[in-house]
């Protein structure tokens, strides 16, 4: 789960990572009140979960109330790479002597947290990694040992930070590691990490991704989910506990198991079709879950045909068939369905479907055959 900048900074503050004072605002009035309280000059920052906010004009400096009025009015409602700005973060402006970069990521190949530090902050770190990989100091931390002071010193010396801030930068990395562990994050990134002219270090930005599987231990973080990045179908699916990703085609897809659904998308694309979504109904889905999933798929008006691709293990094909039959009673779909059922209780599932003879439902025997058929049906309608 990705957090907004200010939410990340609130977690930072909880663990002693130095951040600038600031307040969130949802309206121009709130922005002005926040700025008056914090003091000038201040920054007006768009809160959206996407990079390149500055370039898009979503981050502005305000010297006084008039500036806040102007910038807040311009930025609220602005579209930044497809996301609408609904929230601002008003923060006391900082003077900057140096800009560094720091991050902690879950390194899947090494199976350990990877801490990175660079003096080339403030820009696209992937570009730095491409052009000048030595400019990024990297160190894996043994999760059983945890982050030690020497880790911080080593990274700071290796990255070549100014000698007088080696200690505070090392300390900041230790605090960021506390955030990573304490909040069960899979990513903590600060770009830029600044040094002020009076030699204080501070996190000027915050990018935090939390592990959704661990939210049960952090109920206060569970409330930070920002649905504004999700579209209508994704929100609907989320509320129903379904794993759904919106795509831009016109063939609705439902399958069981992430790998099989990904494979289904590929096979449909190879057959010349364009999937409208990824939907994993999950293991052991009951009829109600299938009905609910059909509603989500069909709520996307672009969908011209739907493909069910089920290989039952835990999932029982007769439950899937019952769910589909129920969905036809509730939703009364107008688009054709191609249904491929294999695996646990497949014979019973196929029998149920054959018995009720749903209008516009075609049984397919293989995954490839099902894909070809649904592509043809979508092209015809």
């Amino acid at each position, binding site marked *: 789960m990705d957090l907004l900048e200010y939410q990340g900074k609130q977690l930072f503050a909880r663990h002693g990572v130095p951040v600038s004072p600031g307040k969130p605002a949802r309206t121009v009035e709130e922005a002005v009140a926040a700025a008056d309280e914090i003091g000038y000059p201040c920054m007006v920052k768009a809160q959206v979960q996407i990079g390149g906010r500055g370039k898009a004009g979503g981050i502005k400096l305000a010297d006084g109330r008039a500036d806040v009025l102007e910038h807040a009015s311009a930025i609220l409602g602005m579209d930044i790479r497809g996301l609408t700005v609904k929230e601002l973060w008003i923060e006391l402006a900082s003077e900057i002597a140096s800009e560094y970069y720091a991050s902690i990521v879950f390194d899947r190949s090494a199976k350990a947290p990877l801490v990175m530090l660079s003096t080339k902050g403030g820009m696209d770190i992937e570009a730095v990694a491409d052009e000048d990989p030595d400019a990024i100091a990297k160190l894996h931390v043994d999760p059983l040992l945890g982050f030690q002071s020497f880790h911080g010193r080593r990274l700071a010396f290796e990255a070549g930070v100014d000698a007088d801030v080696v200690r505070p930068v090392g300390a900041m990395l230790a605090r960021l590691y506390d955030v990573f562990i304490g909040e069960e994050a899979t990513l903590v990134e600060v770009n830029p990490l600044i040094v002020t002219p009076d030699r204080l270090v501070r996190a000027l930005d915050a990018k935090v991704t939390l592990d959704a599987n661990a939210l049960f231990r952090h109920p206060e973080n569970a409330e930070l989910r920002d649905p504004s990045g999700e579209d209508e179908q994704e929100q609907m699916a989320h509320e129903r506990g379904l794993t759904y990703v919106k795509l831009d085609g016109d063939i609705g897809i439902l399958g069981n198991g992430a790998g099989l659904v*990904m494979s289904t998308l590929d096979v449909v694309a190879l057959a010349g079709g364009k999937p409208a979504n990824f939907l994993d109904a999950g*293991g052991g889905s009951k009829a109600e879950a299938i009905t609910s999933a059909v509603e989500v798929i069909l709520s996307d008006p672009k969908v011209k045909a739907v493909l069910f691709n089920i290989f039952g293990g835990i999932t029982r094909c007769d439950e899937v068939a019952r769910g589909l039959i129920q969905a036809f009673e509730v939703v009364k779909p107008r688009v054709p369905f191609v249904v491929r059922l*294999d695996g646990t209780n497949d014979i019973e599932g196929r029998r149920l479907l054959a018995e009720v003879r749903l209008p516009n439902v075609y049984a397919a025997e293989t995954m490839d055959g099902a894909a070809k058929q649904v592509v043809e049906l979508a092209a015809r309608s």
Partner: protein
Amino acid sequence: MSILVGKHTKLCVSGITGREGKFHTLRNRDYGTQVVSGVTPGKGGQSVEGIPVFDTFHDAVARTGANTAMIFVPPTFAADSILEAEDAGIELIIAITEGIPAHDELRAYSVIKKNRRSRLVGPNCPGILSPGKANVGIIPADFFKEGNVGLVSRSGTLTYQIGNELAQSGFGNSTIVGIGGDPVPGSDFIDVIGLLQDDSETELIVMCGEIGGDAEERAADFIAANVTKPVLAYIAGFTAPPGKTMGHAGAIVSGSKGTAAAKAEALESKGVRVGRTPTQVAELAATLLGAAA
């Protein structure tokens, strides 16, 4: 022969008294797996259809000689259960549970790696099936028969799909290993491919990967250096958009790395043929092994 599970397996199930745990334990036993015990804290002394239940893994090992554990408890308790099994000296721990917090997984993985006495497969995996010998997990065994194709996969249902395509072309399997779709799998492709290379029954290795991470790329290097048997691959997610999590916690493409195209290219550059569809994998298997038995 086969790998990891077989006639030698003495299985202890953590979560045996739960609804799903019980259902699959009994299915595994019906298949012929030696299920010797179960663990549910507080239910020691009970039995599940004749299988004795213990309060701790330590008791279960001492009393029943269990050498393999299946973890079927909810995600909140799963890492603890894995660590308990490791502490009790279980050699092979197969974790079926989906949705374990990443930091819990990381800790369990690190302990197992450090102590070097157990092997972990999963979590978030369908288990391991050696057809005709033993089934530990949730793989629907009826679709598979004994044979010479070793199959290793990050995805459960996709394993069934590919296994079924192979079966329809007449091939059977030595062992099918689901390594799971999580970011920190206990065993990687290379661990399992190394075992299949050394297995006398296995003549062809099929690996089934998906977007995210670099496990397939590392497997490609490992195969080039260590594997003499033919290897076929399938990668799911060619059309997955970057930045979106595709169901599996591990299945997310970030930046240029981790894409299906990059993985297929890495494998093909090392001589591993990559089928573009599950059906194509079975066709390639037929060309490599000749007409199936």
